[in-house]
Each structure stands twice: as C-alpha cells, then as structure tokens.
C-alpha cells in the first residue's frame, strides 16, 4: 500500500521534472506574490516586536497637558509638581519639536543631558558619543546622510533662535528606526531653540512595576488638565493600529493569491491537450480516477512546496540584503524608497508553514478541477 503511494510520488516528481515549462510559468508569478507577502508580514512582525520592546524600555506613565480639550505643552511648574505624587520615582521632561533643515523636516528631541549620560552608551549603536555638553547633538543616520554630516560637523538649528551645535554622534543603521531622521539634544537647548523655556512637550514618569494604574489615577486627581497614559494603554492602541495596518496588507495579498487560483487553472487548461492524452493512456492502462487525482495532487504539493521555500528564501534576501526597497515605505511613511536604516523584520517558522500551506492550496485548487474532469471522461474519447 505504502509502495503504491511512493510510486505515485515518484511518478509525480518525474512528471514535474520532465515537463517543467507549465509549472514554471505558473510558479514564478506565485513566488513573487508570496515573497512580497512574506516580506510584508515579517516587517510587520519585526516592527511590532521592536516597538513593544521599546515601550518596555520606557517609563510606566506618560503625561501631557490638556487645554480647551486639546493637546498642549505641559507647563514646567506643573511637570515639577508631579514629583510630589505618591509612587513617582523619577521624572524626565521632554521637548519634541519639528524643524526644517535644508528643506527637510526633522524631529528635535530634547531630554536632560543627565538622562543621556546615564544610558548604556556601548549598546546604543552609534558612531561617536552621546552629547556630553549642551552644544552637542546626536543625529540620525538618514538625516546625517542627507545633510552630509559627520561626527564633529557643525549644525545650525533655527526655529525661534538660531543656535549652533556640534555633532557628537550619529546613530547606526541598526539603531531604532525613529532616530533615523531625529536630532537628540539637551532639553534646555531645545527649549531655547523653540523659544519656550516655560513648557515641555510631555513628561515621562517612572514608577514601580505594577503601580502604573494607581499613579496615573493619582496624577489625574491632582490636576484634571493632565492627560495621562499608562504603558499598557499605549501598548493597547499600538497593537490595535498595527493589526489594522498588517491586516490591510495581508488582505491585499490574499486577493492577489486568490487571483492566482484561476491563473493556474487557466494554465492547466491551456496545457491540457498533451495532459489529456497522458491521463487517457493511464486510464486505459487501468489507473483509477483516484490514482490519477492523487498523482496530480502530489505534483501540486511538490510545486507548492518549491514555490513556498523559494519565496521564503527570496523574501529574506529582499529584506535582509536589499532593505526591502519600495515595500518598507508602506509600513513606515517618509522612509524613502531605498532606506539606509535597517528595517526591523522577523521571519518565523509559522510563516514558512503558512507559505507552504498557501502555495499548496493555490496550486491544488488550480489543477485538481481540470484533472478531475479529464479523468472522469472515458479513455476512448480522450484518446480519439
């Protein structure tokens, strides 16, 4: 019994190997669609994992300000009052601003120098050093490339005031993606540049693990104008948005895969004349319809397996070596078609299994119907 299936498998492999033209045409289109789908899913998964890891590295509570029901900068005196709230361990005020540099929009992120200096510099993935003095800044890799900046270059930031800075470090392409077009500097310097020393954009509130909800409630009770977000809440809306974006992408490619089914069916039909003769001969030799169908199904499984494994390897090559040109811009706006920064991606074993499943399903769905119709016809009519 087992040897019959093995013989059918060998016959199916022989058929595919000896008549590769038809399967190759159908499979090559499927490989491209599947490789792009896998690349997109891997980028989506990589971004999700990386963003959640970054969220874990941050504080438990974020505070901004509310004026007339709209977001506003936090007054510095209100931010300082947060230190007296029970459970607050440490406060890090930040300034996040937008500035134009040589026709490009860059993000200026001001944090106290002490926060940068206490960080694990060896693991920060940058050339040079973190800012050690108020006149020093850290520049993202994409921005540095666009502006021709190197460590030691002078950079002018001009918003309310024009101030000159020295580039102390440039992030690597493997650093967090947000840093690619950002400038990190001292909090007081950022306030000076934007001309507002009385406010900060938001405040990071570090609290003991597990007490985020309680501290958030205490802050809200201390002043209703605080807009308070816990790490869990941020993670919740991040995951929701992420799933929406990944889902839209997958839906588009599901449509492309669905279109592949009639394409393969059409190709099977067009190449059916020699195949009909072959099936007719097999039936005349005494093969049953089930055996013919099993052999064709095994052919489809082999083609699907080949398609999926090649698509997986190509997808890794596309993302890892080429940096997912064009596709990455779908997931990260403003990135550019050929980014310098490395795109976070994560290919997993379930993705490979799903790719094999999809490849086999599409090829099976496309070939079984035409084969079944031929195999049910009397051999004498097929061979006539």
């Amino acid at each position, binding site marked *: 019994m087992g040897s019959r299936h093995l013989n059918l498998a060998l016959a199916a492999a022989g058929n595919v190997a*000896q008549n590769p033209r038809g399967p190759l045409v159908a499979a090559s289109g499927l490989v491209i669609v599947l490789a792009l789908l896998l690349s997109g899913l891997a980028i989506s998964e990589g971004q999700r994992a990386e963003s959640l890891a970054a969220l874990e590295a941050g504080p438990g509570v974020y505070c901004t300000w509310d004026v007339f029901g709209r977001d506003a900068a936090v007054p510095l005196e209100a931010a300082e009052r947060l230190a007296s709230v029970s459970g607050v361990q440490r406060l890090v005020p930040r300034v996040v601003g937008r500035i134009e540099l040589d026709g490009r929009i860059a993000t200026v992120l001001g944090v106290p120098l002490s926060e940068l200096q206490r960080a694990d510099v060896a693991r920060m993935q940058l050339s040079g050093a973190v800012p050690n003095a108020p006149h020093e800044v850290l520049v993202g890799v994409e921005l540095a490339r666009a502006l021709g900046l190197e460590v030691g270059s002078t950079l002018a930031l001009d918003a309310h005031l024009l101030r000159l800075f020295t580039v102390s470090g440039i992030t690597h392409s493997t650093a967090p993606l947000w840093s690619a077009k950002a400038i990190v500097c001292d909090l007081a310097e950022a306030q000076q540049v934007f001309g507002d020393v009385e406010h900060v954009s938001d405040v990071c509130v570090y609290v003991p693990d597990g007490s985020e909800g309680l501290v958030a409630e205490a802050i809200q009770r201390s002043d209703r104008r605080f807009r308070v977000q816990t790490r869990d809440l941020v993670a919740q809306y*991040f995951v929701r948005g992420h799933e929406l974006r990944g889902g839209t992408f997958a839906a588009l490619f599901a449509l492309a895969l669905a279109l592949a089914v009639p394409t393969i069916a059409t190709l099977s039909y067009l190449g059916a004349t020699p195949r009909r003769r072959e099936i007719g001969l097999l039936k005349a030799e005494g093969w049953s319809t089930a055996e013919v169908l099993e052999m064709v199904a095994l052919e489809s499984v082999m083609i699907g397996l080949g398609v999926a494994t090649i698509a997986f390897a190509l997808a890794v090559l596309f993302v890892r070596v080429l940096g997912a040109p064009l596709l990455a811009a779908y997931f990260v706006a403003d990135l550019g078609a050929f980014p310098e920064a490395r795109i976070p991606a994560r290919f997993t074993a379930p993705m490979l299994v799903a790719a094999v499943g999809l490849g086999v399903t599409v090829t099976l769905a496309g070939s079984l119907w035409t084969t079944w119709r031929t195999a049910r016809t009397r051999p004498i009519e097929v061979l006539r």
Partner: protein
Amino acid sequence: MNGSSPRPNAVTLPSPGARLLLVLAGLVALDCVILSSGVADTRRRSAALDAAVGGFALGHALGPAWSFHGFDPRGVRDCESELFPIVGAPCCDPGHRASRATRTGAERP
C-alpha cells in the same frame, strides 16, 4: 567491448524525479538553516537609546512631516492634518487611515 554493460566506476545519475525531490529537500533544509541561524531576524538587539530618551515614536511615520500624531501618538491625541486645508475634509496624511497606532472614540486619556 560489450556496449550494453556499464563502464567500471561509472556513476549512475538518479532519475529526474528523484533529482527534483532532492532539490526540494535541499530548499527545505536551506529555509531551516535561514530560520535557525538568526539571519531572518533583523530586529535590533538593544533598546538602550529608547531607554535613554524614555521610549519614542510608535506612529506610522518616521517624522512629523504630516503630524506628530502620525509620528508618536503618545504626545498628540489628534491628527493636525485633519484641519488642513479644509476643516472637516478627509485627512490628507497619506498614512493616517492605517496608522500603526489607532484609537477609538471610547477612550479619552
């Protein structure tokens, strides 16, 4: 010399079908190696810079060219692009409709 007898030390090539099965096995093995070697995981290994600045940028954009909401929704609840150029018109931010961070109207932190 008898033409039908095989030459000594001749290597018999497997049939085309068997060769195809070997190629498929090789492809599966290649993918397994890619998965196990870590090549397929291009996430960064350190969140040190995030830790230094308090975590940043969960939005769909790499910068606040359109809005800070698209860059980091922690700081800004609403998309400023929705107010431009006609108030109430559909948002012109190309990434807004499928942001990486989205909220429903039910929450108001």
